[in-house]
């Protein structure tokens, strides 16, 4: 169903076209109003009827000739008049139409419309004037009409007649419908076309997009190609290698920037030139470059060249490493590989590398000479302990050449009893465990001699802090031991000097007794009692003197090399007997508390006696006004403890730290060497013992010597 508005618009248009008819109708309406007015003015119904009839007659002529169908109906909806044009419209005669009712004439839908319109018109004064109704034709078809309807009223306002004008609008409607159809079709067409266009458009767009993509890809690959080309050109230009491309005719096809810079050549003076024009004859002769290039053209195999020196004008000579590489053509169809098109010469400037290598070698030589000129033995080992390097000092000390010991284990070069000690020390070192700072282990020389060495070790770690090697530095202690022995001896002689006075007195006493007794015996040989007493005293005096001399000799004698099992108390007694007189002379009272049954100590008796005499003489020196010296021995868990306590001046705290240092002395120059305590210290250390001092200034000092006993010995 078409929208009403459209329909109405069309109606108005049509009305405009039939303007004269409209005007006539308006006049008619106005006339009717006038009639109504007249009728209202006249009260008589008949008069009205008459007037109406007259008016009807007056206008019938007009109505009879009108093409529109003009009709009137009474209020019961019965036709009172129908103009003859109705026959053209419906096929019915006027009479036939007059006999019909609205139900007969109108299609059911239009009847509905008409009834509504009439009801509306009857109810209200102002009625709708135009509406379209579909009428049934005699031949069974229908015709669309535009109906204008007016309600005619009596002067009292009662509706009496309905006046209508019906016009055939079939054509118009057909035209309209055709138009609508056309519109519809057009729209469909347009839609179809639009759809087609859209499709085409879509396809076009897709194609465009595709082309754009393709273009983009093309551009991209072009860009990539360009950038790769640039990249390669840049690389070739910036690599620190000189590149020269040579063709079959030994002409230079291409070179890179580096080559031009290194050789100080212009590009145009290089390209297309023969190899012999560019490279110096000497160089070509030396490298046989041209022959090699020709060989590559024949064989297609690259050649690892070698080193050559090249000197560009006004530049220092540089060293190059060169290679020759064939550049092949892409294989033609049917060929497995293309032939060699060009040969590329690569020249790497290795001047710095060579210099660096030279420097490294120099540094190595330098280091090696440092290590070799070291006085100490320097032995480096791999992490397994196999000897890698063996310096000259090691060779000198051991008598073994480096090539002999290389790959051997260090413990195997030590004296038998120390091999295990060396092995465990190296193991500790490898593991990075606490190892003794230095360890004394004797080497066995090629000649079979023993050399005392003090070793210090360290491990070499890699970046992962794993042990990759060991270094042991050994100091030959032979000389030091000799010097130490000398020092000990000289200190002993010093002690002897100090003792000499006391010892002289000590000897002169028994000598005096013996001598006097002998003289008495000479004078009075008959006096039996005197003789007996004299002989006894002569004998004992001589015994005493010889005992003193013997002790003195023992003390003065250079020490024995070997350690023996010895009794500490006995050594102390012997030392004290030598010094007894010295103590007496210095007004020093001696108190001895020697523990019986001390375990024997493995030691060097004469060295330990030297320590004891040092302790005793020091105590005497600390007591210039006399005093008491207490010598005590004591068995401890670890061994033997020997205490020398004096009641002397004591050691000021600031001297306590230096007291065992060599040459430390508080005595006036010439009175003491200051070596006594330091020598005592080193002797006790050799015995794996300790020596320490406790002192209170003005109260006295106590020196405590501790010596280990041999486990299980008695």
């Amino acid at each position, binding site marked *: 169903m078409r929208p009403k508005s459209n329909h109405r618009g069309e109606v108005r248009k049509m009305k405009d076209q039939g303007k004269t008819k409209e005007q006539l109708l308006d006049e008619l309406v106005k006339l009717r109003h006038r009639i109504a007015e007249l009728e209202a003015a006249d009260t008589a119904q008949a008069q009205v009827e008459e007037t109406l009839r007259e008016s009807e007659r007056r206008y019938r002529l007009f109505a009879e000739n009108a093409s529109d169908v003009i009709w009137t109906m009474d209020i019961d909806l019965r036709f009172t008049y129908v103009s003859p044009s109705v026959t053209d419209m419906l096929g019915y005669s006027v009479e036939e139409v007059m006999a019909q009712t609205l139900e007969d004439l109108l299609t059911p839908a239009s009847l509905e419309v008409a009834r509504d319109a009439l009801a509306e018109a009857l109810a209200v004064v102002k009625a709708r004037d135009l509406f379209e109704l579909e009428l049934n034709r005699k031949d069974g078809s229908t015709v669309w009409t535009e109906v204008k309807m007016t309600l005619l009223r009596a002067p009292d306002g009662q509706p009496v007649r309905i006046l209508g004008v019906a016009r055939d609008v079939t054509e118009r409607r057909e035209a309209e419908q055709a138009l609508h159809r056309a519109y519809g079709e057009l729209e469909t067409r347009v839609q179809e076309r639009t759809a087609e266009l859209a499709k085409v458009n879509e396809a076009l767009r897709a194609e465009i997009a595709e082309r754009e993509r393709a273009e983009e890809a093309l551009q991209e690959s072009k860009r990539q190609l360009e950038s790769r080309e640039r990249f390669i050109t840049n690389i070739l230009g910036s690599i620190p290698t000189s590149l020269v491309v040579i063709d079959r005719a030994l002409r230079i096809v291409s070179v890179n920037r580096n080559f031009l810079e290194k050789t100080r050549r212009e590009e145009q003076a290089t390209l297309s030139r023969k190899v012999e024009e560019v490279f110096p004859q000497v160089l070509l002769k030396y490298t046989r470059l041209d022959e090699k290039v020709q060989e590559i053209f024949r064989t297609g195999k690259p050649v690892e060249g070698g080193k050559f020196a090249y000197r560009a004008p006004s530049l220092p000579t540089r060293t190059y490493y060169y290679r020759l590489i064939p550049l092949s053509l892409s294989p033609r169809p049917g060929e497995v590989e293309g032939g060699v098109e060009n040969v590329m010469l690569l020249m790497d400037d290795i001047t710095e590398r060579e210099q660096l290598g030279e420097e490294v070698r120099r540094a190595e030589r330098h280091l090696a000479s440092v290590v070799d000129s070291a006085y100490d033995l320097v032995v480096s080992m791999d992490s397994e302990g196999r000897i890698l390097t063996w310096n000259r000092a090691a060779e000198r000390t051991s008598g073994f050449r480096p090539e002999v010991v290389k790959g051997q284990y260090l413990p195997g070069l030590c004296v038998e009893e120390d091999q295990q000690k060396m092995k465990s020390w190296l193991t500790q070192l490898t593991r990075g465990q606490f190892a003794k700072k230095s360890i004394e282990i004797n080497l066995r020389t090629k000649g079979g001699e023993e050399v005392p060495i003090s070793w210090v070790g360290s491990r070499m770690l890699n970046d992962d802090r794993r042990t990759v090697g060991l270094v042991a530095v050994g100091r030959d202690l032979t000389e030091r031991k000799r010097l130490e022995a000398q020092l000990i001896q000289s200190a002993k002689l010093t002690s002897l000097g100090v003792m000499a006075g006391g010892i002289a007195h000590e000897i*002169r006493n028994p000598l005096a007794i013996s001598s006097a007794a002998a003289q*008495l015996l000479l004078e009075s040989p008959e006096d039996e009692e005197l003789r007996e007493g004299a002989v006894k005293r002569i004998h004992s005096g001589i015994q005493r003197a010889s005992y003193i001399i013997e002790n003195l000799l023992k003390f003065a004698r250079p020490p024995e090399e070997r350690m023996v099992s010895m009794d500490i108390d006995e050594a102390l007694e012997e030392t004290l007997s030598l010094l007894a007189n010295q103590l007496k002379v210095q007004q020093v009272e001696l108190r001895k508390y020697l523990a019986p049954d001390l375990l024997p100590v493995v030691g060097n008796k004469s060295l330990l006696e030297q320590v004891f005499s040092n302790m005793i003489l020091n105590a005497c020196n600390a007591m210039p006004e006399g005093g008491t010296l207490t010598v005590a021995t004591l068995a401890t868990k670890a061994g033997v403890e020997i205490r020398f306590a004096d009641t002397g001046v004591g050691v000021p705290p600031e001297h306590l730290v230096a007291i065992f240092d060599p040459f430390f002395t508080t005595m006036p120059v010439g009175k003491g060497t200051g070596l006594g305590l330091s020598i005592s210290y080193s002797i006790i250390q050799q015995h794996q013992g300790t020596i320490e001092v406790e002192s209170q200034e003005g109260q006295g000092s106590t020196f405590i010597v501790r010596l280990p006993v041999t486990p299980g010995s008695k």
Partner: protein
Amino acid sequence: MKQELPRILIVDDEPDMCWVLENILRLTGYAVTTTTTGAEALELLAGEPYTAAFVDVKLAGLDGLELAALIRQQSPHTVLVLISGYFYQEDKIINEGLKKELFIGFISKPFNLEEVRLMARQAVERAREENHAKDSNSGGG
């Protein structure tokens, strides 16, 4: 009346030395007393007068020189002779003692018997001289 023998005191820390000195002087004709300590020596001197004393320079507990000074102080009439194995005649301390007349002589060990006898004679002589001087002084006064 038999003349009383001159009394001599011997101080030496070695009994054997005391025995030898005692026998030398006894046989020569002196009344000899011996002791091995300085303390006992002073005690003995305080009890009886001695013409002379032979003192060992080095004694345990009391220095011989100190003892000499004490004896001089306590019994000025006893003439002193020093014996030593430690010092020599030339030592300064001995020279000074002689000069100050702390002791009249010095015997170094070992010695000849005659040295001891001479010293004993000189000591007795000196004591007699001193007594005589005293006597004449008192007689004259």
